[in-house]
């Protein structure tokens, strides 16, 4: 057993924490730019330390637990929400270099999807244990939403898995390097996946669980200080993870397009990844919110049939002589 398997997770955690801080900064800047504002400018040069200051503030705040809350569950919920969010990063291959692959699991994709659905438990528990009606409503919405969208999410990647013949994320990328990026042959799957992914992330236009204008703050209404920070951290870690997963599944991971191989693979990965993160922030600034019943209808009547059609078409095209190399 090598020593680095203990060191790398710590490094990864540090990277994720820095990412979260600067993702929030980036989000505020992007949304500020769209909304004719400047975003943070005061703390540090160009407001670069704003997120650090915010996190620091959250950490030194008093930790309030409502007296009528279910204490053990109330404390457990943020941990239950965050731990899977971080654990899923273990299987993400950021480049082809062996030192940036934390674990090369044969069923990497399965591991990701299975673990990420534990988070909903944390959210649901948080909403329940707070003993607050808004939290409860938010938690219930989150539960319903995340479970409904899990299904099209899983089904939409079946096409990708079929083309690679593997659930290993590294192999999925290698198949794409040999063939074509999955976004082209699997376009329908990609569309379903990206919509379901946004819903999984609870972001606009699917941000019902924390709909401010309706539920105050949804499931984390009663959370303060570092427990609240954990929920936020989970949310942004998922942004990190989901952006990575989309890059890997549909955009060829670290593959350099147009033969631009002089740019290192890791940089390519980060570039593609950032495009998706930007897309998320862009949507947040430009879309209204769906209503709960419309959301459910969309998942079951819209996305689910499309995902199934995608599986069928992919399977069919796999047998067509010329096209089969792409599927």
């Amino acid at each position, binding site marked *: 057993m090598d020593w680095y398997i203990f060191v790398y997770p710590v490094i990864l955690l540090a990277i994720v924490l820095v990412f979260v801080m600067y993702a929030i900064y980036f989000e505020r800047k992007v949304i500020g730019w769209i909304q004719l504002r400047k975003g943070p400018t005061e703390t540090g040069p160009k407001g670069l330390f704003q997120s650090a200051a915010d996190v620091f503030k959250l950490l030194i705040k008093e930790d309030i637990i409502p007296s009528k809350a279910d204490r053990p569950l109330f404390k457990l919920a943020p941990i239950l929400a965050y731990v899977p969010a971080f654990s899923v990063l273990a299987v993400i291959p950021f480049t082809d270099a062996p030192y940036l692959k934390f674990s090369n699991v044969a069923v990497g994709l399965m591991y990701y999807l299975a673990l990420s659905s534990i988070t909903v438990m944390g959210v649901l528990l948080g909403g329940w244990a707070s003993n607050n009606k808004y939290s409860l409503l938010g938690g219930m919405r989150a539960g319903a939403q995340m479970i409904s969208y899990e299904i099209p999410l899983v089904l939409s990647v079946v096409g990708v898995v079929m083309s690679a013949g593997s659930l290993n994320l590294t192999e999925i990328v290698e198949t794409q390097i040999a063939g074509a990026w999955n976004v082209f042959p699997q376009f329908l799957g990609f569309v379903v996946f990206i919509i379901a992914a946004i819903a999984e992330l609870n972001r606009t236009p699917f941000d019902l669980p924390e709909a401010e204008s309706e539920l105050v703050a949804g499931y984390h209404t009663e959370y303060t200080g570092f427990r609240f920070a954990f929920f936020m951290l989970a949310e942004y870690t998922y942004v990190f993870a989901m952006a990575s997963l989309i890059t890997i599944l549909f955009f060829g991971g670290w593959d350099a397009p147009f033969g631009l191989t002089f740019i290192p693979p890791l940089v390519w990965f980060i570039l593609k990844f950032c495009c998706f993160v930007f897309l998320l922030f862009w949507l947040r600034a430009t879309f209204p919110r769906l*209503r709960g019943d419309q959301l459910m209808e969309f998942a079951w009547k819209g996305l689910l049939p499309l995902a199934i059609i995608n599986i069928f078409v992919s399977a069919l095209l796999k047998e067509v002589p010329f096209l089969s190399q792409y599927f």
Partner: protein
Amino acid sequence: MLRTEEMVLNLGPQHPSMHGVLRLVVKIDGEIIREIEPVVGYLHRGTEKLAEDLNYTQIIPYTDRLDYLSSMTNNYVVCHATETLMGLEIPEKAEYLRVIVMEMNRVASHLLWLGTFLLDVGALTPFLYCFRDREQILSMFNELCGARLTYNYMRVGGVKWDAPAGWLDKVKNFADYMINEIQNYHELISGNEIFLQRTKGIGVITKEMALSYSLSGANIRCTGIDWDLRKKQPYSVYDRFDFKVPLGKTGDLLDKYHCRMDEMVEAMKIVKQAVEGFPEGGATMGKVPRVLRVPEGEVYVGVESPRGELGCHIVSKGKDKPWRIKFRRPSFYNLQVAKELLVGQNIANLVAILGSIDIVLGEVDG
């Protein structure tokens, strides 16, 4: 079958989308509203009672605080009622200034409505665009009367200040800019699929409902009933301007949205016409006695405020103070329809419908 229970949820008086201090006690089954009980009065200041101890000029700043988003129309209604009772002649210049500021105030008020309504539906960005444009109106008002929200601009017999040099040109430029800008809003918002899904066929007000609840403003016009006091009971110099009254067909949220958007365009057209026909010379105040002793009698006048029919009923006993004054506050009347509209809807629709009624709690509570 699982046993389910109804839950009582207390929305407000502090809640992000209650537009002030309205409190709603709702009984929900899951997210479906079964019963609803609005509780008002958290912002009651007793304006009508206070006014009995004030002389007519002193009442005007109190009306600023009723519907604090359109203080100009509030100023106007109390001045107009007093003038009608006294039979005063108002100089033409003052009438034109009044129309310009009232219509600009209508646009400012509708812009705020647009921003907050979309915030209720979950879109963050339009709010800031609306505030950018509203800001221009407020700074023009600031230039005119030194205040951004509580103007205290009108007086019995005219207006307090004449337009500063170059102000009218600014207004005209703004009107052109705004008509164009509303087109941009339409491009950004009106076609959005999610927005349409959230508004089409939601919160439908029927003609019968509108009449029986005595609704006014966009809330009645969205049903297709042509009721605009500027046309039906012309006051001030409105009969000189050419403008349309936008009407809806179905009475849902989308119709209300389009009514208000078109009203903004029409208001800007009135402003443009008023600036073009603005009288050069003349005073801004008519011949008014130093102490306003209003002859004995009663008067009711209604004007079209951004929210609907704003009325003022004055009973005078011949003193310098009113014996009784009563405001017909449109938000209060419009809010009453909420109870019928909201039962059977879910929480997300509640917020949208309540936002669409466009209430100002300062006016509801009086």
